[in-house]
């Protein structure tokens, strides 16, 4: 039954955002494009998962992708480092660039691409090896260390950047799987950043963690975004509000709205975004 409710005029007041509140937000002039997506469509077999998604992703900032389950946000994230390539029946049209270069061009080696675009998954997935080896693996296969000392330096630096070194420095040879969930996730972040990626993709990195471990990861993201481009998929709108400077809202495979995070959570332009962030979706 169609509800007969007269459309209520939406009065839109542009709220000026104070400069301090946008701390970490990038002024328009300083926005440096890192990745772009243009008219991206993705199909899993017959089913279309993404419809004409175009999105700019800026360097040295956190971009959050939010939306209800099945909205295509994870599909979009995986398209950014060609993780969809390995899924059978997955097809894509459109263009995704990294520093202006098409990452789907035949010249691009997906393995090299994934060194530049790192990924952290929902469930911490350390290798069943020592803490040291977990972090050393990437730099070793990519030939980043010329000597054992250099490799050690990279491992220590990565663990330090991931905020884990102090906690594990006395047991680098113990298994990574013996750490707590939050520590494992930080180990995975250390592993991802050990190969000096330019972009870090995070697929619900905190959904298996308690609030304190979550806060640690969020603090870490704040540090890392000073030098990295971070894209995070999160089910938690609150997390998106906390950690990101830009937020993109996906719904039914379409990008509904993208804007500065403060604007998205205080005065979004689209009523669907408004309904989602206020918990009225239905």
């Amino acid at each position, binding site marked *: 039954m169609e509800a007969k409710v007269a459309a209520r005029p939406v009065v839109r007041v542009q709220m000026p955002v104070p400069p301090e509140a946008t701390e970490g937000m990038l002024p328009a002039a300083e926005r440096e494009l890192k990745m772009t997506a243009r008219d991206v469509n993705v199909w899993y077999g017959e089913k279309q998962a993404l419809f004409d998604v175009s999105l700019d992703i800026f360097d040295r900032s956190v971009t959050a992708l939010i939306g209800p389950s099945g909205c295509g946000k994870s599909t979009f994230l995986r398209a950014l480092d060609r993780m969809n390539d390995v899924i059978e029946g997955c097809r894509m049209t459109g263009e995704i660039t990294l520093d202006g270069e098409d990452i789907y061009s035949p010249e691009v080696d997906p393995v090299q691409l994934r060194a530049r675009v790192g990924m952290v998954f929902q469930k911490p997935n350390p290798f069943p090896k020592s803490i040291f080896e977990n972090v050393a693996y990437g730099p070793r296969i990519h030939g980043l260390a010329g000597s054992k000392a250099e490799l050690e330096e990279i491992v220590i630096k990565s663990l330090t950047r991931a905020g884990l070194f102090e906690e594990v420095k006395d047991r680098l040879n113990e298994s990574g799987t013996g750490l707590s969930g939050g520590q494992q996730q930080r180990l995975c972040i250390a592993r991802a950043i050990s190969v000096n990626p330019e972009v870090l993709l995070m697929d619900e990195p905190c959904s298996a963690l308690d609030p304190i471990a979550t806060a640690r990861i*969020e603090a870490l993201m704040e540090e890392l975004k000073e030098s990295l481009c971070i894209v995070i998929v999160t089910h938690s709108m609150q997390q998106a509000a906390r950690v990101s400077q830009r937020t993109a809202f996906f719904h039914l495979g379409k990008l509904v709205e993208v804007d500065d995070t403060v604007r998205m959570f*205080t005065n979004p332009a689209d009523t669907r975004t408004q309904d989602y962030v206020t918990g009225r979706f239905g």
Partner: protein
Amino acid sequence: MMDKQHEHIVRSYEEELELLNNKIAKMGGLAEQVLGQSIDALERRDPELAASTINEDEAIDALEREIEEQAVVMIARRQPMAYDLRQIMAALRIAGDLERIGDLGKNIAKRAVAVVSEQQPKQLMLGLKHMGELALAQLKEVLDAFIERDADRALKVWYKDEEIDAMYNSLFRELLTYMMEDPRNIGLCTHLLFGAKNIERIGDHATNIAETVYYLVHGAAITDQRPKGDTTSSTPVPLKRSAG
């Protein structure tokens, strides 16, 4: 007094709370300045000081808007809980009170301009000045209590407001007497009466802030009844001059 809080794991959250605190402190400093100068301007009959005081109120208003906006953004982005939530609510409320104090101070400065050419009875001016000084001391004290998160200090301010009320009562009576003595005094006395009322209102806002500080620290409202000293609203005015 509240124990020292642990810092947030996310540093920027800590910085934002600190910024909010600093803005309240700055706003409080400006409100003190406006109040102090407006009373000086009135006492010294200094129209220039009055004019610059009137202008300073704008900075207070601007800070209030900034604090409101920052609070909204922090509620949206940080989802504050418990003590953090109270800090943000307290900042909003205190900013509102300080803005009113600024306005009332500005109003006193305006009256200082209005009465510049009038001959002022020393006795009355002295009373008004003392009242202003007491309100200023109350404001200073409550702002310190906020910065220190000291609920006991705030509570003392809360109780002490009675003194301002009592001074206002006696000034009210004195001004009435002057007006009855000579109708030519009415213009000046009305301005001074409004000035005194403004100071009395400033005292009330200081007690509001004291209540907010108490709430911030303890998470509960002050339950005690505040002694009310302002009885002028129920003081009968003799319509006819009594003979003699």
